[in-house]
C-alpha cells in the first residue's frame, strides 16, 4: 500500500482546517484532462465534508506528454507567493483547454498579479525547484499517474468520481465520526 512520504506541512497549499479528521492530498497536472475532471469533483467533495476535510494540492506535471504543465505549475506557485495560489489553481483548471504560452500572463492579469514578474519567473525557472520537489515527493510516495490521491496518507487506488471519493473519505474518517450529508 503506497503511503505519503512527505507529510503535509506549512509549505503546502492547504484548504480546510488543520485538525480535520480527513486529509485529501492530490498530486495533479494542470494540463491533464483527468485532473480537470477531478477539479469539479473535489469542489463537491469539499462542500460535502466541509470542516471534516483538509485538501492539499501538490504538483506532478507530466512534462513529456503535457508541454504546458510545467509552466502552469510554476505560474500557480508564483501566484502563491502573492497569496493567490488557489485562485490561479482554479483558473488553470477551468481554462485547461486554452492552455498556451499567452494564457498564463492573461490569467495573471485577471488576478491582478504583476505580469512582468511572472514572465521573468518563468524564464528564469524561479519556481522550478518548488515544482520539482513536489514531483519528487510524489514519485517517492508511489504516485502512479495523474491525478493520484492520498487519503490520510494512503494512496487511493480506484476511481475518483464523487461517490468513490465520498466513500473512501468516509471510510478513512470512520463511521462514528463521519457526518453523513447525503
Amino acid at each position, binding site marked *: 500500500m503506497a503511503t505519503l512520504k512527505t507529510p503535509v506541512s506549512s509549505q503546502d497549499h492547504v484548504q480546510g482546517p488543520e485538525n480535520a479528521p480527513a486529509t485529501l492530498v492530490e498530486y495533479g*497536472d494542470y494540463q491533464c484532462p*483527468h485532473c480537470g475532471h477531478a477539479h469539479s469533483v473535489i469542489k463537491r467533495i469539499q462542500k460535502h465534508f466541509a470542516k471534516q476535510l483538509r485538501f492539499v494540492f501538490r504538483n506532478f506535471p*507530466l512534462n*513529456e506528454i503535457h508541454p504546458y504543465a510545467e509552466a502552469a505549475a510554476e505560474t500557480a506557485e508564483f501566484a502563491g507567493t502573492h497569496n493567490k495560489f488557489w485562485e490561479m489553481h482554479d483558473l488553470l483548471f477551468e481554462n485547461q483547454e486554452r492552455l498556451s504560452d499567452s494564457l498564463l500572463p492573461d490569467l495573471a492579469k485577471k488576478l491582478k498579479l504583476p505580469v512582468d514578474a511572472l514572465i521573468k519567473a518563468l524564464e528564469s525557472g524561479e519556481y522550478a525547484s518548488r515544482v520539482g520537489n513536489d514531483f519528487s515527493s510524489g514519485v517517492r510516495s508511489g504516485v502512479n499517474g495523474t491525478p493520484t490521491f492520498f487519503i490520510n496518507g494512503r494512496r487511493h487506488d480506484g476511481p475518483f468520481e464523487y461517490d468513490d471519493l465520498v466513500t473512501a473519505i468516509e471510510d478513512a474518517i470512520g463511521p462514528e465520526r463521519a457526518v453523513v450529508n447525503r
Partner: protein
Amino acid sequence: MVLAFYPADWSPVCGDQMALYNEVLPEFRKLGAELVGISVDGVWCHRAFSEARNLHFPLLADFEPKGAVAQKYGVYRDGDGISERALFVIDKEGKIAWSYCSPIGVNPGADGILQALEDLAK
C-alpha cells in the same frame, strides 16, 4: 537495470506506467540504472506507443514466441496471453536484486524501484 513487464500498450489513463517512468527516468539514471519496458505487443505497436508517449527508453517486444521472456521470469499469464505487471531490478552481475508484482489493474509507481536502486547503491 530496471526491467518493467507491463500487460499492454495503450491503457487509457494520463500518465500510464510507462509514461510515468519516462518522467522519472532521470532519477533512475542518477542511480546508475537503465530502464527497459517489455510487453507481448509487437514492434510496430511499440513504435507507435513510444512515439505517442515520447518515451526515452526502449520497449522490448516479447512477441514471438509469445511471452517467452515473461515465462522465463515467471510472470506470464497463460489464460490472458499477457504478462503480469511485474518489476525487476537487476544488478551489474545479472542477479535479480528486487522484484515486485503489482495487481494487474494497479500501476505500481516508481517508489519501490527507487528504493531498491538506492539499496543497491549502498
